[in-house]
């Protein structure tokens, strides 16, 4: 789960990482008096908001109100802006980058730091990024922060500030079950202070139960994806024609891939998971039908999920929902013959092999859709 910038900065503040003075508003009349210059930052969970026009500067309260009125409620890269963060504008001397994330191949936290901050880290050449891997059992030690401070060129008091920030950042990473904590840019002000000008915090959604204090942000999800997720389906809405229901993430992906290699575009990724429930199968159709596909393709390899159960679910769905699009079903594995017979008796074509079923989908697509 991604945190908004202002939520991440609240954590930073709590752990002693300096952040700019500022406040969050949800309506333009909450803008306070402006002394000097303020930066108004749209709070969205998508990246690249600066380039998309989501960050503005204002020199007076009137100007800030004007900007706030325009931004609040408008859409930025497809997501609605509900919050603005109004902050003092920093006197930037230099921008740095620092983050802690998971290194999948080393199965450890990795700290990355660079003196080339302010840009996307992917754009920084690898030799300018300093890396340290931390043993998650032994934890973080000050020497790591000292060494990185030196590599980044910090001396004296700024080095001390950096060490304190990095130790706090690691503490947040561990105590909040984070997948990523990132400060980009970490600003060195002309006054010689290190300040986290931005925050990016992603918390492991599987560990949310350990953090009841955190808000529940819903990110990058369509209303239908949210609906499906709440009902326990792994579901992604896509922009094609074929509504796919399969079991297992890998097989569902493989089904989508097979369709694409036949020039068919999937409309849904719906993974039934390791269930053996008629009800769950039936309700999957409700979701896929809401996505409004032109054809529904059910691809099941029965193991824990029995083909007969899926067949019952399909028949129940046919009974309950108004399915007026063509449907192709492939059932293989445990109780496959029983499952296919139940469907055939109800007039639904059922395949045992995946490829003939995909070809059938292609054939129907050519006939019906085109």
């Amino acid at each position: 789960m991604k945190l908004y910038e202002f939520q991440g900065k609240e954590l930073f503040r709590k752990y002693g990482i300096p952040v700019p003075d500022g406040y969050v508003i949800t309506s333009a009349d909450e803008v306070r008096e402006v002394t000097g210059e303020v930066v108004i930052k749209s709070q969205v969970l998508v990246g690249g908001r600066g380039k998309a026009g989501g960050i503005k500067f204002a020199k007076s309260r009137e100007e800030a109100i004007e900007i706030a009125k325009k931004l609040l409620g408008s859409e930025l890269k497809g997501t609605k802006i509900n919050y603005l963060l109004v902050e003092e504008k920093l006197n930037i001397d230099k921008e740095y980058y620092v983050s802690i994330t998971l290194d999948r191949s080393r199965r450890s936290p990795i700290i990355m730091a660079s003196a080339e901050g302010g840009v996307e880290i992917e754009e920084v050449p690898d030799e300018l990024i300093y890396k340290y891997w931390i043993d998650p059992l032994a934890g973080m030690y000050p020497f790591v922060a000292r060494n990185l401070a030196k590599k980044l060129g910090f001396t004296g008091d700024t080095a001390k500030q950096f060490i304190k920030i990095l130790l706090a950042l690691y503490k947040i990473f561990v105590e909040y079950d984070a997948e990523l904590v990132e400060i980009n840019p970490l600003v060195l002000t002309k006054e010689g202070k290190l300040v986290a000008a931005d925050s990016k915090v992603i918390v492991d959604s599987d560990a949310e139960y350990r953090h009841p204090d955190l808000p529940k942000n819903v990110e990058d999800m369509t209303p239908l994806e949210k609906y499906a997720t709440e009902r326990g389906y792994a579901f992604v809405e896509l922009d094609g024609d074929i509504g796919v229901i399969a079991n297992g993430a890998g097989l569902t992906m493989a089904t989508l891939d097979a369709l694409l290699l036949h020039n068919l575009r999937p409309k849904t990724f719906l993974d039934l998971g390791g269930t053996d429930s008629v009800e769950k199968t039936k309700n999957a159709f409700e979701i896929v039908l809401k996505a409004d596909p032109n054809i529904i393709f059910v691809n099941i390899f029965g193991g824990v999920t029995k083909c007969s159960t899926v067949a019952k679910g399909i028949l129940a769905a046919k009974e309950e929902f108004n399915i007026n699009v063509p449907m192709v079903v492939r059932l293989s594995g445990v109780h496959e013959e029983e499952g296919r017979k139940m469907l055939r008796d109800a007039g639904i074509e059922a395949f045992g092999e995946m490829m003939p079923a995909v070809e059938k989908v292609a054939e129907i697509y050519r006939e019906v859709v085109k």
Partner: protein
Amino acid sequence: MSILIDKDTRILVQGITGHQGSFHSGEMIKFGAKVVAGVTPGKGGTEIHGVKVYDSVEEAMCEEPNATMIAVPARFVKDAAFEAMYAGIKLVYILTEKVPVHDAMQIINYARKHGINVIGPNSPGITAPGKSKIGIMPNHIFREGNIAVASRSGTLTYEIVYALSKEGFGQSVVIGLGGDRIIGLDFVDILKMLKDDDETKGVVLIGEIGGTAEEEAAEYIKKEFDKPVVAYIAGRSAPPGKRMGHAGAIISRGRGTAESKMRAFREVGVRIADYPQDVPKLLKEVMK
């Protein structure tokens, strides 16, 4: 003997009285696996499928288990895994999904430093046809033989194994590595074990988008692995930034695409199947 498990592997099931633990222990026994003990705190003294249940791993050690299947709810997995590792069990298989990633990191780092093999989390387990099974793979799809399969998926693995069995390619071992971001053994670890495994003549790797495990496997194959390898990569149609079911299956920041993985494999001579059902056909070509 097969890698990781064989007919003498003595299996403990942690969470044996739960729905998953109980059902799959029964299936494992039917497959011929030696399930020697179960653990559920507070349920000691009972029996499941004729297997004695103990209150703790420490107590269950009297049955001399040397592998464990962890089938407890996600929030208890770390406790269960350390309980097994502290007791001296050297093969820890974690079935449970949605294990917090920081817990997985700690379990796996401890394991690697102590010579313990962890499979999972979120894995369907290991099956060595004719020998043993630890996990939840369906019994009927296997056939004894000399093809090793390592996979990041569940159902897709069954699909491909089933196709292999039908086409006459039996399996020496089938390993589900787990669908999470942080997992114990990965492709390279398995390839290192298969390198000197006399029972394995060919290998099938089933990868998916996310991470760099396939690219690392390709590098290892280039340097040290001589047996024929066929691969399938799921997720070539996946849009970036969308998690395709598995926690690990996500293309983020341009890393972990199917194209990159297929390219890495092709460059070292690994054949790539376009469809899961094509795996046996390609295997026939490379096994000649």
